[in-house]
Every structure is written in C-alpha cells, then in structure tokens.
C-alpha cells in the first residue's frame, strides 16, 4: 500500500547511506511516506535488518568502512544508478562530512542535512564556538582556537585553571578528548590527544576548555527549514555517559534551575538562525546550576532523537525529508506541546565489567521488550550475527510515562524482559538497570561523572567482614 500519493511525497527514491538501527529507522519513515528506499551495505551487513526492509539493497564494498560506508564514489554511483533523488546519511560515517554533501550536490543529489558550508563552519569545533560566542551564546572558558604548542597550552591552563579538557577540533562521537586534572599531565595529554586526532580525524589540531566535573550534558533539538522557520523541541539530558559516549538519555531535562531551559532553547534557536541552519540539529551544552556553556552543534539526526519524538509526537526523520525537499516544517513552535517524560537506554553488546569491551557474536536469543508505552529501535533479530567491524549498539529501548518516576520504572520493566544472549555475547543491560536504581539518578541529581563512579564501585573488590 502506498499511503501517500506520488505528488505529496517529498521524494520518489531515497538512498540510505548508513547501517544498523539508524538505517532501518530511516527506511521506516520512508516507507510510511511512500518513498522507495535503496540501502547500500558492506559485505558484513548482507543480512542486516535495513537490507531486509529496503526496497533495494546494493553491496558497495567490504566490511572496512573506509571502502564502504565512508566511500562516497560507491554511494553516489548507486544513488545515480537507482534513480535516488536524495541521500540520507543517518548519524556517524559521512553524516557530517561537508565534502560528501558537496559531492552529492554536484551529482544532482539532495543531501539530507544542512548545507555543506554550514556543516563546514560548525564542524570546526573551535570556530563554531567563536561563532556562537559572537551570536551571544555563552561558551566555556577556554582557548576558543586551536592550541599552537606547549607554551600556548600552559598559558591557556593558567587562564582557565584545572581540570580542563583537551579536544580535537575535528572530533565527535566522544573520541579525541582527554581530561587533565593535574598540571604534570598537561603536556602528555596534549601530545596524546593531538596524535590520536591526527590518526583518527586526519586533523591534529586540538583546543582546550574548562572541564566541569559536576556538570550535566544538556542538548536542545532544533528543526529549521529554508523558509525562515526555526523551532526547538525542548531539551534532552544525556549525562549518563561512559567514555564520553551516551548510555541513557531523557526528555525533558529534569531538575534544571529556573530559567535555564529558556536560556538554552533561546540560544539554540538564535544560534541556528545566525548560521542559516536547515534540517534537524542539536545544540549541546554543559550545565552546572545556573552556569551554562555552549559546546557544539551536531548537524544530523542523533541516536537519542526518539525521546524527543515520544514527548512531542513529531517524527524527526519525516521533518528532515520534508525540509530537504524544500518544503516548510509541518509544525510551528506553538504546535510543539511536549507530554510526559521519555527515557532511552542504549543496549550495546559490550562487557561492562571489562571496560566496555565490545563482544559481538551471534544473537541466538533475541526477544525485545514491548507493551504499553515502550518503543524499541533495533536492527537485531534472532540468529543475526553482530558484525565486529562496527559499533556495538544493538537496541535502543525507549519508555514513555506521564512522569519521570513512572518512566524509569517502565524502563526497568522493559529492560528486565529484554532477552539477548549468544555465545560470548554480553550486553549493557544490567549496568543500565543499575543506573536506573541509583539514588542520585532517580533523584535527578546525577552528573556526567555518574557512570565512572558507578563502574569504579562495581570493580572495587568486596571486602569481607
């Protein structure tokens, strides 16, 4: 059944240039809109759920991302051959690569995301921060520019104090960061981060900013079209992180100081307007009481977007596609009426007891939770082998309830009934349940340090007597 007539769907065919749950997520909305989907995949993803769900699937390369999901010529070739009009990049891989967006444009393909020049400006984290500071957004104390050398680093450290965090200018996804607590660690951290940034991002520039250990990670979802409409869909709290990677997210952000939410959403909308943003984007902040600082913009759909969808009822991927086709947003700021609380837990195939070591394998048993107000976004299914080549996320469980306490109880119920097993496979499920039971987390008094403290407690040997 095509629920949508050809005239009112934004595109006839969309190519999905990603894998895993987000590729399936995009295919789902495309199907609902009557859009034909083409999924490109590596040899390791032949049997993936997105491949099964797509109208057409084309194998573009071997398991190594550099020769498949990160290889623009193969993706563009398939798009042109299959008659795709647009390319949805998901998150990660090429999602925030202005060069790829440019290549798409040159080949007559719509890249579903902001314009390449906007992505380029916001992709340079130090430049983005200068830009936002000019727009009046609060930014963290720090260099606001790449560090030139050790002397420069010392000067910045004196200015902003310790602890501080050294970040790759081209970084993202939690990679390329070091926190420095003691002066004698400054130089080694500087060198290590620069080396890592050079290796991972092919750009060894780093910058430093003040690190707030007692802070929360709060982000604002924005949607913008090419007709001057910019709205926000409230805030998400993503403070439960391991190694700077989020594990639990929720919306709305609980227990913010009075006035903070308004300041954050106002800043995000103003920031988006100042750069001519279009599509879906996220403005990330650190918040410590009344203290608010802009960190970066993510120019893509995010892993945690479902919590916003659950409280607002808005399909963010649908809005992305509408905007990419040059249409106005389907709703204005007054139409955004959040209801209740949504929480997302990321179930990864990782061993929480061994420093989150990925442990992929065959999912011999895979029974996701269900029932009232529970949503599961997963590409897992019984018998599927999680490839070792990609990230370890196998399912996102999202629970909604009228209030936060009920939402956490519902999430715990859902995780408890989630059955995932296979030879050698372990998941973050039990750790997630520990976090849900943590008194600080339940009281919404936790910070980004929560998980580190919790895992430290876990690994500490029990003493008898």
């Amino acid at each position: 059944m095509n629920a949508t007539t050809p005239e009112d769907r934004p595109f006839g065919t969309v190519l999905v240039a990603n894998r895993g749950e987000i590729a399936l997520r995009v295919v789902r909305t495309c199907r609902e809109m009557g859009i034909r989907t083409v999924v490109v995949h590596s040899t390791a993803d032949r049997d993936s759920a997105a491949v099964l769900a797509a109208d057409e699937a084309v194998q573009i390369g071997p398991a190594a991302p550099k020769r498949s999901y990160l290889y623009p010529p193969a993706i563009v070739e398939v798009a042109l051959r299959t008659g795709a009009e647009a390319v949805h990049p998901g998150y990660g891989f090429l999602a925030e690569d202005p060069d790829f967006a440019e290549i798409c444009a040159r080949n007559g393909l719509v890249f579903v995301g902001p314009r390449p020049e906007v992505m380029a400006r916001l992709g340079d984290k130090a430049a983005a921060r200068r830009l936002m500071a000019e727009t009046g957004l609060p930014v963290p104390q720090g260099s606001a520019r790449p560090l030139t050398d050790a002397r420069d680093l010392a000067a910045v450290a004196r200015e902003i104090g310790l602890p501080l965090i050294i970040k790759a200018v081209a970084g993202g996804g939690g990679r390329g960061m070091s926190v420095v607590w003691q002066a004698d660690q400054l130089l080694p951290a500087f060198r290590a981060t620069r080396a890592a940034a050079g290796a991972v991002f092919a750009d060894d520039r780093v910058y430093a900013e003040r690190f707030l250990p007692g802070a929360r990670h709060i982000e604002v979802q924005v949607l913008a079209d090419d007709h001057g409409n910019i709205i926000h869909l409230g805030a998400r709290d993503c403070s439960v992180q391991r190694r700077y990677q989020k594990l639990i997210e929720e919306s709305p952000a609980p227990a913010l100081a009075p006035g903070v939410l308004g300041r954050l959403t106002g800043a995000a909308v103003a920031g988006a307007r100042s750069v001519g943003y279009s599509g879906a984007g996220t403005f990330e902040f650190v918040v410590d009481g009344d203290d608010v600082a802009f960190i970066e913009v993510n120019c893509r759909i995010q892993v945690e977007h479902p919590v916003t969808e659950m409280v607002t009822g808005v399909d963010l991927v649908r809005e992305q596609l509408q905007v990419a086709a040059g249409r106005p947003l389907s709703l204005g700021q007054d139409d955004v009426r959040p209801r209740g609380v949504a929480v997302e837990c990321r179930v990864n195939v990782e061993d929480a007891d061994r420093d989150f070591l990925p442990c992929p394998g065959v999912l011999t048993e895979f029974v996701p939770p269900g029932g009232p107000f529970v949503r599961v976004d997963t590409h897992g299914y019984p018998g599927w082998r999680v490839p070792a080549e990609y990230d370890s996320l196998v399912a996102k469980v999202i629970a909604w309830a009228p209030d936060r306490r009920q939402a956490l109880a519902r999430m715990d119920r859902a995780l408890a009934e989630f059955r995932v097993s296979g030879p050698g496979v372990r998941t973050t499920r039990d750790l997630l349940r520990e976090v849900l039971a943590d008194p600080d987390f339940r009281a919404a008094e936790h910070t980004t340090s929560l998980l580190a403290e919790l895992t430290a407690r876990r690994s500490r040997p029990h003493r008898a007597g």
Partner: protein
Amino acid sequence: MTGMRVTGAYRGSGDGVEAGPLEATVAQLGAQDAIQVLCQGVADVVRAAPLRPSRVSVRFGCASLDVEWPATASVDAAVPAPDAESKPELDTVTAPLVGTFYRASEPGATPFVAPGDLVEPGQQVAIIEAMKLLNPILAEQHGEVVDVLVADAQPVEYGQPLLRLRPPRTERTG
C-alpha cells in the same frame, strides 16, 4: 535418495594428523565457540542452499556437527543444486567496486574476452564504470574463460561474480 546432500567437510589436506593455522584457530576458539561456528556453518548452508538439504555435516578439526532432516519435509526437492558441486575447481573474478559492467572498450567493439579464451595475470577482462570513470578489471591468474556471468552494460555490486576461469591443468596438480 531424493534430497540434496551437502557435505561441508573442512578436512584440511590429509585425513590424518592435521596441523597448521586452521588447527590453531580452532584451538583458540574453545569448545563453545567451535560448536557455535559449526552451527553457523550449518545455518549458512541451509540459508544459502536453493533447496533444503536433507543432511548437513560440518567438521573442523576434532569438532563436528551432523544434522539430518526428515525426507518428508523437503517439499521442493526436485531440482538439483546449480553448479556448486559440479564445477568446484573454477576461479571467479569478482567486482572490486560497484558500477556498470562492460565487456568491451566501447559499444560495438570486440569483447575483451570470450568463453574459451586463455587469459594471463594482468590481462584486462572487462570494465566497470563508476562515477563516470572507467575502471579496468584485470585477471589475477592464468586460466581459460569458462563463462561471463554478467551481461554487457549491467549494474554490478561489490563482490559480484563476473567471470569464471578454469585454471590450467599444470597448476592444479602442482
């Protein structure tokens, strides 16, 4: 016997004392993993086979797995399996990239190769056009072209088989 028989024996060279890297791999795997691998093997065979097998047997070193299905259940067991068994010694040239396959340098020109031709390593056997670039496809081994599996100007995926070559006799016995 009505059903198809697939024997996925992984015996190494001789039947006696097996050694070498394969054996080492199995040793590292341990019992659980090994059985898992075998299960996966059976599952793959069943999934890949165009017909449902009546019996699958996988062996790797000292680990083996044998599955038999009842004869009644194999409903669509009439047609024999394509060529998997009949032409086991052929080499396959696969597409190193996604694109459009061309047998000749331009429309109307003589194809680079045709069945019966002998090719040598480095010899061009086809073109794959991608992003408006013509990528020559070269043979990596000596051999006789048995067949060309893709029609001219057809799209191909990464890894898709393009041609099959029969290695020269001398090499096979050597």
